[in-house]
């Protein structure tokens, strides 16, 4: 696989494949199966797929109930609509430590024209506030596939944040929770990029290094917002003076906040953490390119910002 592919599609293909090996996996959707790509599982295992209609809250509850009976439910919708049912997730899944896997697609301003109502922009903030919840964000197809299998084998709730837009392949090491794969060496500054932001951050870092700006940031794929691994984080904070976290998500409570909280509390030397994302504003309609540009989430804008 070398072309570009959206992580929602990677998810759909992976779940359809793993359904063979893991017979307890079941899948729910709420009238968005063609968008979340759960339709690929639905076609292969119609008996293990549940079309709930437009009932996200009911879907969450049903999945919790099924998990108590030993099934491994994947529940799929746009991240905005799924995590919008916060109390149901908090109580029926989080508090109960239900073995439910939440799939939130269409995250970030990069969904484009549909605008704010359909954009997952606060989903990480919400999900990482729930104890027991593991919060993951793959940056490419291979990583998404590995995360899906990891989630099947992990006992407890997992939130997987996926993109509408297609992403390139990065050929990274196998997913190990808490270890951010490194894509570029560098010094003093580390770019920690999440999901759809990885390509732009990597290109910007390479641009900065080439253009003799005096900056040569290392680049990591920050593929997990929770739980951060202390050893890995300690090494990062030891090694780099500035950590910049890029995310197509509000900076309020996102992966950048998670890392800033960890560093301010635990780093041996005080370090600066820059949260680089959607700055406490709503989403809106526009082309994906125009919106990413407006929020500074392109390689050019990032390069300019740090030049």
């Amino acid at each position, binding site marked *: 696989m070398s072309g570009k592919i959206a992580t929602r599609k990677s998810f759909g293909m992976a779940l359809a494949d793993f359904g063979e090996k893991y017979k307890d996996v079941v899948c729910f959707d709420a*009238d968005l199966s063609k968008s979340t790509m759960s339709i690929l599982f639905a076609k292969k295992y119609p008996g293990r797929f549940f079309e709930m209609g437009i*009932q996200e809250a009911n879907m969450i509850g049903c999945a919790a109930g099924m998990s108590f009976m030993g099934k491994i439910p994947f529940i799929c919708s746009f991240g905005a609509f799924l995590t*919008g049912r916060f109390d149901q997730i908090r109580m029926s899944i989080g508090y109960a430590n239900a073995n439910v896997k939440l799939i939130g697609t269409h995250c970030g301003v990069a969904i484009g024209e549909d*605008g*704010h109502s359909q954009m997952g922009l606060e989903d990480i903030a919400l999900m990482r506030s729930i104890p027991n919840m593991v919060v993951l964000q793959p940056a490419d197809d291979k990583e998404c596939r590995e995360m899906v299998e990891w989630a099947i084998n992990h006992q407890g709730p997992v939130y997987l944040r996926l993109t509408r837009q297609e992403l390139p392949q990065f050929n990274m090491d196998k997913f190990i929770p808490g270890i951010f794969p490194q894509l570029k060496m560098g010094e003093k500054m580390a770019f920690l990029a999440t999901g759809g932001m990885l390509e732009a951050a990597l290109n910007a870092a390479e641009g900065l290094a080439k253009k003799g700006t005096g900056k040569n940031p290392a680049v990591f794929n920050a593929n997990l917002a929770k739980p951060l691994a202390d050893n890995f984080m300690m090494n990062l904070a030891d090694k780099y003076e500035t950590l910049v976290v890029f995310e197509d998500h509000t900076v309020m409570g996102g992966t950048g906040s998670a890392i800033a909280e960890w560093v301010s509390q635990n780093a041996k030397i005080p370090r600066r953490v820059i949260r680089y994302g959607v700055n406490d504003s709503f989403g809106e309609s*526009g082309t994906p390119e125009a919106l990413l540009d407006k929020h500074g989430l392109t390689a050019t804008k990032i390069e300019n910002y740090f030049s």
Partner: protein
Amino acid sequence: MNNNLFVQWADQTPQIRKNILQMIAKAQSGHPGGSLSCVEIIYTLMAPNGVMKYNPKKPLERERDRFVLSKGHACPTLYAVLSAVGHDISQDELMSLRQLGSRLQGHPDRARLPYVEASTGSLGQGASIAQGIAMSYKLDSLNHRVFALLGDGEMQEGQIWEVALSAPHQKLDNLTLILDYNKGQIDGPTNKVLSLDPLTDKWRSFGWEVSEVNGHSYSELYTALSKKSPRPQMVIAHTIKGRGVSFMEGNTDWHGRAPNVKELELALQEVAANRQIGLSN
């Protein structure tokens, strides 16, 4: 009795459908199916001498009837009708749908465009907002009505059924919900995905005044929507998704995709030729 009026309205409707199609085609994204199914419904409310009491020249005055588009993805229809009935939305602005900076967001944004009563797009919330407006009319002894338009897929959301229970309890005779019953949602026909039947019985048993009409007939819509009742009202409008464009009608594939140049041309021809839709029985 109002036949002349309905003929006038029917004359206006092809232009509204044309605008909707052009807006979506220009944006190269949007929801033609559910926009075309509710043209007659929204126009019956807002048209000159229509059901709603409001002054398009003073669209924000406090004392007026209000309309909440709960199925927010059909906003091209709302924008096109607002423009047609004299709100300050020009033809040029219509064509800015879904562009960066436009007031005409992909789903209604009350903060940008004050003529939309609620920011919707997350289905299931508009009926409650309309209920709140109805409660406020009562509180302030304002003799006005509020209408909300829901989709049939949307009606699967639990929050709608909280309104079903709550509004009769609050004796909200000033609240009318309208169902755009086009029998389709995204993953397929509504009765396959999650059936609402028996729909009339359900709402009636919750204490609502229920009417069933042809949602493309101006006379039937006008009669049902003008009706006064001591109870909150549910108007079930039987409609056709994609109405007016033969290759879109009843086809769920057209829920959320824009026509290309060729398809737009065909669609515009059909829409221009068909001036009878609102006069159907």
